[in-house]
């Protein structure tokens, strides 16, 4: 509230009145941006209208800008579709379990690397930085997962993602920027590193934790790639996005006969898309500033 007020105060009151008037250029800029925003929104709107239209309306009308024949059967189908709900369950496991797991390991690693001078710190740091530039590639990784016996298990979508190097470094820089005196005085009082971390540094870094946690959460919500590559036989372990992907690729591979829309899969797929993005659409406007903060802090310090 207070910050908003400061934002609204004029920073330079010396500015001439000519500068503060809305000019022709402002209108041009505004119009361009509004068109751009419209182009971003249009696919969402188009998909939404298709999802609540009847098959007949979709096939006969020219441009569906407004639902002409309301038909909610696609949503009925989505909400009674076991595969989608199964995918939703798996995604929820990834969202809650995976995010906690990633946050835990990323944050403790970042903390350890932010403390000064313990034996071998530079070695570990270099070992981690090297992996940002070199990697084994897709095939050796695939072979590793196979050797570890993680194919067709839910673990392949969780375990390897323990530490995200970029977010870990973000966390490390944040911890390093907090005053060192707190650690020193706590040490004199007899606290060990774990107590200092849990009782002093963690409470101070809650905004940063929220930022990183949100990035992890979005990643888990959108997770499909690991399932696509490594889970080929156990379709019951597919997360939501992977189930959706199979529905979409069914449409797109129906290239030869574009006229034959079987069981109105377009409407059903668009309804499923909404099933997966509505939660994000509801939260995003309120959480946007955390996301923006993450990328800006990372860019300036990293």
């Amino acid at each position, binding site marked *: 509230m207070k910050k908003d007020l400061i934002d609204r105060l004029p920073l330079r009151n010396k500015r*001439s009145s000519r500068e503060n008037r809305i000019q022709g250029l402002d209108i041009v800029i505004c119009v361009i941006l509004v068109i751009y925003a419209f182009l971003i929104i249009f696919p969402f709107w188009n998909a939404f209208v298709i999802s609540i239209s009847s098959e007949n309306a*979709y096939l006969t009308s020219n441009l569906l800008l407004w639902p002409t024949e309301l038909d909610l059967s696609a949503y009925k189908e989505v909400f009674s579709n076991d595969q989608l709900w199964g995918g939703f369950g798996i995604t929820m496991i990834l969202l809650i379990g995976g995010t906690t797991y990633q946050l835990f390991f990323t944050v*403790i690693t970042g903390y350890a690397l932010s403390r000064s001078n313990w034996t071998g710190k530079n070695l570990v740091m270099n070992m981690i930085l090297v992996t940002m530039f070199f990697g084994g590639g897709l095939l050796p990784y695939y072979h590793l997962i196979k050797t570890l016996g993680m194919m067709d298990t839910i673990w392949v979508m969780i375990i390897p993602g323990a530490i995200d190097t970029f977010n870990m470094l973000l966390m490390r820089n944040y911890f390093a920027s907090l005053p060192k005196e707190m650690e020193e005085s706590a040490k004199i009082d007899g606290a060990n590193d774990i107590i200092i971390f849990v009782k002093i540094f963690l409470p101070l870094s809650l905004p940063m934790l929220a930022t990183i946690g949100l990035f992890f959460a979005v990643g888990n919500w959108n997770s499909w790639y690991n399932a696509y590559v490594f889970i080929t036989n156990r379709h019951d372990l597919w997360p939501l996005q992977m189930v959706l992907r199979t529905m979409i690729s069914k449409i797109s591979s129906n290239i030869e006969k574009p006229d034959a829309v079987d069981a109105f899969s377009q409407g059903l797929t668009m309804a499923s898309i909404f099933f997966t993005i509505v939660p994000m*659409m509801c939260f995003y406007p309120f959480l*946007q500033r955390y996301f923006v903060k993450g990328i800006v802090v990372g860019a300036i310090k990293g």
Partner: protein
Amino acid sequence: MELVTIAKRNSRIRKFGTKLGRSKYLIFMIIPAIVFYIVFNYIPMYGITMAFKEFNPRLGILGSPWNGIENFIAVFEEPKFWVAFKNTLIIGSVKIVISFLGAVLVALLLNELRMRRTKKTIQTIVTFPHFLSWVVVAGFVISIFAYHGAINSIIEIFGGTRINFMKDTSFYFGAYFLSDIWKEAGWGSIIYLATMAGIPQDQYEAADIDGANRLQKIWHITLPGIKPTAILLLIMSVGGVLSAGFDQILNLTPEMYMDQVGIIDTYIFFHSIRGTDGAGVGTAIGLFKSVISFILVITVDRIAKLCGERGII
């Protein structure tokens, strides 16, 4: 003499021991990270040796016989690989250019927009697609360009006939670029907007006194102000030019067109992991790709340094 050395050494070991003991909790915290990086990053690096072996799953990486550069020869003699290679270069480099221009343009427009409320709303709208998965974006692309989709409807309204876009391979290149801009331009603009906010205001004030108009201020102050950030981001994106958006293309392209409009990564995926090419060949392509990416980053970094800019290495 001997005794003194031994005593010295012992005391040094003891000192090392107490130092280790003092930081034992921190070391305890870092152990999981060491294990994870070794298992999931360093063991696959060792797996690169498969590129020089005739890999046999029964014998494992160590047991498989070496075969020199046969895997590489097999790849380089395959015309389909060169199609994928050419596609990768085209898609990757065009994407770097358009995503850079798109992000800077959006940032400039938003920066110049003086209506605070509108600016905030527009920013929220245009950054949102970044958080959609490519699965969802591919769903949008397919629905809009479908035979009964919006684009075809517009064509029909203007008296044209409906086109079956999905059947035309050149459509996919357009779809890659368009969807990439649609999804990432808004998000990419944030970093430039933050940089623009950091440009000292007195420069603009001085320009005002000199009577500069807005376009002149953009050209002479804002653009030079974001130049270091832009160059840094460009150098970093060059490293990913050969990756060209694996997850995007996996979702936008039907499997039957992968050989025509796919990239190196999809070639590895569909020929080695899902196909019959074998792990050795796939690893060889991966190694080839990493080496070229590395050379590209070094080269661009050198060029930037020669031009008097700060590099990354």
